């Protein structure tokens, strides 16, 4: 992130002054490396000393209802690792991204394991720092944005309001609330036959009707499902973090969306993971037809 640190003081918050945190980005965010890096950057701008953790080694276990013992072991391991970070590094707050992980921690992991840290969602932390962060939003983003929303997770964190409050601080932007859909993110609808397509169609129809030029996703799984619609009807798909990065004049690349549109990782990256792995694990997902035909 060359060129970023020079802007840090502009937020008015001394680096690391807000405390040490662990940014727990979950498993599936690993499809969106830019979102991990930009989220860490935003937390740093808000004054936090940030270390990230995620992937299978920090699995919450929420997707393993069919393996209760394995899920229990995973959740205990993850809590232990965060407890260790709290004790040895003073990282007393775990900042979540994934709503599944956040709810699983609150509802199931903590009641089954002694927890020695606080938990906050990244949108809570950043919204609290909104006035300071807004000083960094120096590049106008002249977009009319429809915010893609779900009902779920708002029982734990008012995420729709938090994201709206953040992106509304961007100069030049107009924000329109999209329909509030069932589920906590699109992956929960994708798991139920016939649930995702009507939700995506309502969103897109409303975005067109409201003359929006951008649909803003909140969560990674929604971004994953909607990325294939980028440029349909002239509407771009961006995550809220991309919009904040644009406002800060930072590169806001979106490799996953570009790959869905027919691009591919560079040859060296494919060779690094192995061409057979790439063909078996990555290509089918990238070439899956878009949710709307």
């Amino acid at each position: 992130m060359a060129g970023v640190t020079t802007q840090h003081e502009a937020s008015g918050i001394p680096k690391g002054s807000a405390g040490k945190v662990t940014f727990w980005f979950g498993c599936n965010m690993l499809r969106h490396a830019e979102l991990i890096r930009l989220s860490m950057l935003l937390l740093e701008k808000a004054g936090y000393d940030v270390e990230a953790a995620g992937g299978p080694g920090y699995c919450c276990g929420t997707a393993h209802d069919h393996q209760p013992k394995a899920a229990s072991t995973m959740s205990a391991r993850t809590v232990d690792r965060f407890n260790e970070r709290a004790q040895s590094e003073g990282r007393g707050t775990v900042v979540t991204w994934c709503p599944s992980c956040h709810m699983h921690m609150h509802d199931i992991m903590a009641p089954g394991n002694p927890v020695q840290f606080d938990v906050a969602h990244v949108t809570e932390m950043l919204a609290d720092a909104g006035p300071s962060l807004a000083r960094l939003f120096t590049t106008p983003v002249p977009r009319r944005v429809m915010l893609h929303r779900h009902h779920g997770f708002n029982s734990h964190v008012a995420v729709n309001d938090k994201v709206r409050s953040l992106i509304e601080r961007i100069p030049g932007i107009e924000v329109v609330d999209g329909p509030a859909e069932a589920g906590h993110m699109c992956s929960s609808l994708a798991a139920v036959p016939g649930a995702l397509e009507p939700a995506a169609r309502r969103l897109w129809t409303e975005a067109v009707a409201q003359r929006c030029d951008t649909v803003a996703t909140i969560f990674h799984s929604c971004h994953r499902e909607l990325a294939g619609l980028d440029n349909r009807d002239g509407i771009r798909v961006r995550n809220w973090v991309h919009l904040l990065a644009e406002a800060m004049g930072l590169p806001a690349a979106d490799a996953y969306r570009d790959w869905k549109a027919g691009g591919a990782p560079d040859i060296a990256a494919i060779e690094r993971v192995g061409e057979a792995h790439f063909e078996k694990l990555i290509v089918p997902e990238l070439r899956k037809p878009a949710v709307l035909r």
Partner: protein
Amino acid sequence: MTRPPPAQATSTEAYLRDAGPRLADLCTACGACFVACPMVDVIGLRGADASAASAGLRLLARGEAGPDETVKWAGACAKSGLCIAACPEREAGLDAMLLVRIARQRAINDTRQLGAKGDPLAFPRVKTFARLQLTDEEQKRWLE
């Protein structure tokens, strides 16, 4: 920022085993959770008996077989969370979404009325996405 609730059991498995019957005891099968659930429309159960469907949650949460409507409903839970606020026993300690979650788990693992939906390639896939995009240093520091 919140401090998660204190531990009530020695593992999540033990907690969920104990929480099922406890939540079932709090539930009055009034059907408010079913009425509030937007997935009921998606799976074509809007005309079903809401009280009977929620009574089925109590059965499943205790490890007993539930009616087909309840199994179908619990299997389609997308964590919309609207049932939590709709539940009149919330103040008494009933987390309706957790009750549905436990009912679903029991329908998978105990009564075998639902099939497992695990994806054995899920972790290999995210690891491969990570290796495509993360630097060696990022993988070392973030993934351990």
